[in-house]
């Protein structure tokens, strides 16, 4: 336990002292809130038959913010491979599980804080803008809205962990970012061209981004491919698979 605490402290020192990482985190917060506010300002709900989900609208920025979360995660590990620092790290903490756990813990903590700020800003913007645009009953005190907000924070954390696992396995920063962003953004495009409804549902159910973002649903619709919490669970499965793969490669591979 003590080793883990020390390892976490060491990782935190790295993040704190590396240039740019905390700025990146700030960019995630600003970008997410700004895009969310912009979308909320651009969307209007007609008086008759408003079918749009205010939760999804007010949290649109998460789709951009997740890219920042992914980069942060990739930089945490691939920077060490780039400079050879990883050899120092595993010499100091020879147990690979502890190294990865410490990195994951620091990353999760950072993204939790950034996510709360980003999502909080988005919800606040939605609360201020949306009622004027024909949406009723959008309030953080409302159960589904709270679930959407809390779920979006968790979504950012889980995307970060997914990226950390991929980056550990791939080692190169550019390739890792390419794989993660490809994985996230491939499925929505594919789903938009697939006309077979069964394929469409299946894609929406298994894709990390579309399934994970189902947690942002705040209005009940019977036709949704996957429920909010089940969707987040799908993303969690992706993240844990990725971290397990990373752990295996860390154990079996030379640094």
């Amino acid at each position: 336990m003590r080793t883990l605490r020390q390892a976490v402290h060491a990782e935190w020192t790295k993040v704190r002292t590396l240039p740019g990482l905390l700025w990146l985190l700030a960019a995630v917060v600003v970008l997410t809130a700004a895009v969310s506010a912009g979308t909320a300002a651009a969307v209007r709900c007609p008086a008759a038959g408003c079918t749009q989900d205010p939760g999804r609208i007010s949290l649109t920025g998460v789709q951009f913010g997740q890219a920042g979360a992914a980069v942060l995660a990739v930089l945490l590990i691939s920077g060490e491979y780039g400079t050879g620092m990883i050899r120092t790290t595993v010499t100091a903490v020879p147990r690979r599980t502890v190294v990865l756990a410490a990195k994951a813990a620091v990353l999760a903590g950072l993204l939790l804080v950034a996510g709360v700020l980003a999502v909080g800003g988005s919800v606040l913007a939605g609360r201020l803008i949306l009622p004027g645009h024909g949406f009723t009953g959008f309030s953080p005190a409302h159960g589904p809205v709270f679930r959407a907000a809390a779920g979006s924070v968790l979504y950012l954390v889980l995307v970060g962990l997914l990226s950390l696992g991929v980056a550990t396995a791939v080692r190169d920063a550019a390739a890792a970012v390419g794989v993660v962003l490809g994985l996230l953004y491939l499925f929505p495009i594919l789903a938009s061209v697939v006309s077979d409804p069964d394929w469409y549902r299946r894609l929406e159910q298994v894709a990390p981004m579309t399934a994970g973002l189902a947690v942002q649903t705040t209005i009940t619709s019977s036709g949704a491919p996957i429920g909010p919490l089940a969707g987040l669970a799908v993303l969690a499965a992706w993240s844990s698979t990725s971290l397990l793969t990373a752990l295996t490669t860390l154990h079996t591979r030379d640094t």
Partner: protein
Amino acid sequence: MTTTTATPYRSTQAAARDGFLRLLHGEWTKFRTVRGWVVGMVTAALVTVAVGLLGAAGSSISCSGPHGGKCDHSVPKGPGGQEIRDAMTLVHRPLTGDGSITVRITSLTGRYPEGGRQPADGDPGATMLSGVQPWAKAGVIVKDGTKQGSAYAAVALTGAHGVRMQDDFTHDVAGIPGGVSAASPRWLRLTRAGDTLTGYDSADGTHWHTIGTARLAGLPETVQAGLFTTSPEYVVTSNSLGGSSSNGAPSRATAVFDSVDLHGKAGAAWAADVLGGGGPDAPGAADLGYRQAGGTYTLTGSGDVAPEVPGRGSPAKTVENSLIGVFAGLVVVTVVATMFVTAEYRRGLIRTTLTASPRRGRVLAAKAVVIGAVSFLTGLVAAAAAVLVVGAVERSKGFPTYPTPFATSVRVVVGTAALFAVTAVLALALGTVLRRSAGAVTAVVVAIVLPYILAVAAVLPAGPSRWLTRLTPAAAFAVEQSVHQYAQVAADYTPADGYFPLAPWAGLGVLCAYAAAVVATAAVLLRRRDA
């Protein structure tokens, strides 16, 4: 004491030529010998085709009719081979040789289904509201027979766009603006002289104004001349975040013609036809047709005489449907192009490179040429293969395809290759600016691919989608657009339907402008900064 002077060392080797070609050769050697980059480029091409194949594999076409099974999804073709709609109520007489037809229209009214919902059977009038569609048309027509898709020229009064002269489905010229009433009727005339048809309009029947002429090559000696009325489907689209839905159902237009005057060698009797629309037995078609009382003809029509415009709802595939994997290929190309320079910074090779070639701007130029050319070739192969292979799969699954002129196909494929090349140069330049691969790859992907996804996967409503595909580098995807936007056809022309707000090359120009700006920044920074 003698003083010795030290002679500076001079190499006896002859100075190597530092031509740009040698620099290019050096950079090409770097690219060629890193196996990961070559594999990456091959992967980019494979991913482009594979994602397109996945899209085709996950699509199916079937009949929702009561008997299921195979059904006819074929769309009538116009004289130019383009897919068209040709449905109207037509009252005609054969006309041999040159001649003219003149009419007066005193009224154009219409009805449309509330909310675009199909009225229930047996109660066709229940939810019909009164109002004429903006592009409902009534007027005179000269047509090569009554077969759907045959050549024609027409002068027609529209619901909201004044008098128009149209021919062969795609051409449209404006005449007198404004609507019609009994107090202010519209006179329309169409004359035939050989292959040339000339349209006229008039507000009083004495002062005529020429709208335009149309040349219908190969028009036979005997054609059908007469009156027609048609009214396009009324479609209501509700745009929302995460998808939009649309309802559409046929509308009706009713026009009252009088003072009909057919000059030339014409057949004796008027014949009436309801073209397209499933014939008189189709639901709600009972009121289509015409009545004659003295010299007054009242025609009620439904349908459209216009080019077919593909959209999200249409079952037919366009050439850009097979290029859906391009964005995935672009992600891979971005990764390789970024690493082409950031790997040098990481390994310190950049110092060797800049020592060997101290003129730094030329180093950047050489790198850009090499990665741009390689990406262009990759894109060319990937796009051509995707169009051929994915198109073949779509056809084998029974999807109808929109015919694309050869020149357009070439532009789409070459444009996609250029999209690969410019994206690679942008990624290279951004990699030079940031010197770190993760940030550069993310920035390029977020700038090019993410707006594309938000706009094309219909995540955002139409308005923000258009702005994204106009201002961000994702505007370059317009180069893949093969479909035309017609002013005379009301449809949802949104990026999600395949219609980009900018013209193909203008869209690519937006990306080029971004790339040029970043390349300039990279050149300045490379010169000023320590390596």
